[in-house]
């Protein structure tokens, strides 16, 4: 058995994972990062828009500061976030963006003088100050009071990922690709590392470490329609939950985006609608204005996704080989606008649909986009329940996003949280010596090898992994998507319970040798269904609507009863998650109030309780 020992094991080499690794390496610790794909192919590189940080250099960002960023983040979360964490995040973000500039990110910079921009289809003029020339500039994003999104052309994630990965190479950090963690090695109290399947040979390996950080990104692939990469499958979260002692925070908190293209659910930007694009139904008629007379297509992400779903449910969707969808129409914006301002949309339409957006309609539907939910950690990034286990980035519920994540805040989170949590891990490593129990390691390896052998031999049954997985994805799509209600959630849970049972009876069709994908899919399926059950059970229990969580039967935001965070545990041999709750935040800097968008009623919390928890800074 190949066994590797280090101070820190980082599972996941996206932006969050590599940022954590850099911090430990700078402190002289020995780190290894594992990833399914070469680090730069991690989903972080797909982000185009940018990263939020209140630097305030550009004209439209003038007067911005970390307090405003903090306030936007708390409102965005619909008061579901941990305000202490949101504060740390907003305060640290500008420093991290500057650090990235020092390390090599080619941020776009302030160009002095007069220029134009568009808002709601109208043209405006702005003037950039000469004394700001060459400083990091920013662009506009939804849900923010100021232009705060730092960017590099249309490839922010890619550029930052390149720089971070270069930094890892410079520091000599071991980054290994085609290595998939399939379980954690622990004794119920302390995490000792992970059992890993090599995706080149199919063989099992052991990685031991004093500290382990799970940075495996989001889990959009639990849904069949998602903007996420195919590797965003939740395996990292699943192996943490499987320990029985580590909970998933706010499992019901999943974000949906209105315009994924059909069939592949690749994202086309909100800018299409921002610039005047419209949504059409099967009769090629507009419908958003019927539901939202004031804002129509320009209502917020969650609202548009809700209305589109309603309209399709009412029988106005376009039928296709890939299910129902609606149309996005940007034809009237004209050639010049499409080939300049919407260059990326133009290319996506051409490359993936063979559609010319100047003359043809774009097939779109709401699609899963982001997981606010994740491994619950405290503010130092330490996972609840297991000593020596940490998590950062989209896989974590560190919880600065609460029930809705603002655009540009997640990419920024990866490096900000990575830096902060990286430092906390360094502190932990300084104060820790450890011993590894060979009995625990051997038992875990044996258990995993047994699972693989059973799958290959078909000892458990004959269920087809791809079929069962597709049924899980469909169950969430129908029962726990943009809209949730008691009836559909109950059906969803019942279906998922049946699927969970079948996920224990998978038998392979192929021989399972080498870099076999069927084995990989089968090994993680059971954990995925557990996560899916967590989403549905959490959504059923939460009898209110907050951020992305919309209960048709409980449309109000209920601060009186639900200013809380769900914790979903999976005890050994359970067949349903056990839900516990904790306060959403230890204190309020901004007491719960109206977001200023999205509408809806609020059931007020007890004012005395709120007052007692409110602090002044």
């Amino acid at each position, binding site marked *: 058995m190949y066994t590797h020992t280090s101070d820190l094991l980082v599972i996941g080499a996206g932006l969050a994972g590599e940022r954590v690794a850099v911090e430990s390496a700078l402190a002289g610790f020995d780190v290894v990062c594992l990833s399914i*794909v070469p680090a*730069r192919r991690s989903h972080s590189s797909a982000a185009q828009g940018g990263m939020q940080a209140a630097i305030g250099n550009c004209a439209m960002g003038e007067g911005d500061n970390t307090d405003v960023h903090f306030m936007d983040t708390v409102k965005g979360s619909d008061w579901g976030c941990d305000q202490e964490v949101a504060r740390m995040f907003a305060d640290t973000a500008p420093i991290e963006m500057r650090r990235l500039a020092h390390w090599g990110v*080619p941020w*776009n910079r302030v160009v002095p003088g007069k220029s134009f921009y568009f808002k709601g289809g109208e043209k405006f003029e702005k003037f950039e100050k000469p004394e700001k020339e*060459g400083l990091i500039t920013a662009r506009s994003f939804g849900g923010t009071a100021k232009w705060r999104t730092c960017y590099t052309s249309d490839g922010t994630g890619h550029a930052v990922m390149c720089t971070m990965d270069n930094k890892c190479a410079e520091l000599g950090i071991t980054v290994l690709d085609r290595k998939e963690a399939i379980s954690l090695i622990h004794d119920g109290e302390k995490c000792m590392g992970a059992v890993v399947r090599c995706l080149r040979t199919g063989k099992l390996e052991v990685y031991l470490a004093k500290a382990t950080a799970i940075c495996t990104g989001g889990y959009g692939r639990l849904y069949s329609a998602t903007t996420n990469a195919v590797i965003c499958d939740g395996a990292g979260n699943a192996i943490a939950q499987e320990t029985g002692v580590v909970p998933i925070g706010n499992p019901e908190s999943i974000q949906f985006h209105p315009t994924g293209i059909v069939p592949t659910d690749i994202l086309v930007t909100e800018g299409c609608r921002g610039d005047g694009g419209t949504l059409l139904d099967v009769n090629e008629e507009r419908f958003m204005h019927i539901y939202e007379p004031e804002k129509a297509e320009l209502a917020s992400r969650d609202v548009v996704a809700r209305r589109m779903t309603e309209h399709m449910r009412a029988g106005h969707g376009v039928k296709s*080989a890939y299910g129902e969808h609606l149309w996005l129409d940007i034809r009237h914006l004209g050639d010049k606008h499409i080939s300049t301002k919407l260059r990326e949309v133009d290319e996506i339409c051409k490359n*993936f649909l063979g559609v010319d957006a100047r003359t043809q309609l774009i097939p779109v539907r709401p699609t899963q986009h982001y997981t606010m939910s994740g491994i619950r950690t405290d503010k130092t990034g330490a996972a609840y329940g297991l000593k020596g286990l940490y998590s950062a980035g989209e896989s974590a519920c560190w919880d600065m996003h609460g029930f809705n994540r603002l655009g540009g805040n997640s990419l920024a989170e990866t490096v900000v949280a990575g830096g902060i949590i990286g430092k906390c891990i360094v502190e932990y490593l300084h104060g820790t010596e450890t011993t590894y129990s060979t009995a625990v390691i051997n038992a875990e390896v044996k258990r995993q090898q047994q699972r693989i052998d059973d799958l290959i031999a078909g000892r458990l049954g004959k269920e087809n992994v791809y079929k069962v997985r597709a049924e899980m994805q469909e169950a969430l799509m129908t029962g726990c998507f943009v809209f949730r209600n008691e009836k559909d959630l109950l059906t969803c849970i019942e279906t998922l319970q049946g699927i969970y049972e079948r996920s224990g009876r998978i038998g392979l069709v192929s021989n399972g040798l080498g870099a076999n994908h069927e084995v990989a899919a089968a090994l993680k399926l059971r954990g995925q269904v557990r996560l899916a059950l967590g989403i549905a059970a959490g959504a059923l229990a939460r009898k209110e609507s907050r951020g992305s969580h919309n209960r048709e039967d409980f449309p109000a935001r209920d601060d009186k009863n639900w200013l809380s965070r769900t914790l979903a545990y999976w005890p050994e041999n359970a067949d349903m998650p056990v839900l516990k709750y904790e306060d959403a935040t230890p204190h309020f800097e901004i007491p719960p109030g109206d977001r200023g968008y999205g509408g809806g009623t609020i059931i007020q919390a007890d004012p005395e309780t709120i007052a007692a928890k409110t602090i002044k800074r």
Partner: protein
Amino acid sequence: MGRTLKFDIFRYNPEEPASQPRMQAFTLDETENMTLFIALNRLREEQDPGLIFDFCCRAGICGSCGMVVNGRPRLACQTKTKDLPETITLLPLPVFKLIGDLSVDTGVWFREMYQKTESWIHTTKEFDHTKEEERMDNAVAEQIYELERCVECGCCIAACGTARMRDDFLGAAALNRVARFVVDPRDQRTDKEYFEIIGNDYGIFGCMGLLACEDICPKNLPLQNQLGFLRRKMGITAIKQFLGK
């Protein structure tokens, strides 16, 4: 529409003792807007779960899915079947180590390249978090970004005659990487230091200038310009060194 596609796919699993390199035929009904991502996943899920290939973003941005499609290296996820004839031949990229069927090891190749080219900013300056960032001209930032758009798919390497002949040839992607740091004012390396990395036959002087790399690059990187730029710069550096300057 309504076509039945015939796929001829290279099969070989090095981890399977009985496996022999061979071509295998599959058929699949074409659906609207089908890409090779959709087609290959359907083949794996419905016909042969042992089929090995790589996708990640499936949106043309990560570079995972380079393969030879009807003779041409390209990204499979952004290849639409309707642009291809009824018979589609799929082979793994040459030059890289084969993992199985259509999957090759670009990860290790590119990580070695980072070490060879020292693919990071070389500077003696320390980061000071209490200070404003150092200024940069926006045009320079954009120029750096244009060179950094490489997704490391390996298509240019697979298409390159020199790379196929010599294992140690750095290839267009690596030379482009060096160019990215040459134009970056933050990197303090001198021409002489760059010369030590690429001023030889496995670097810039090994390139035959046949353009295959630029033709094939799915990100349309200006590889020829960069190769020309480095060749001139390194040529001058070589002369200077020869003259003892």
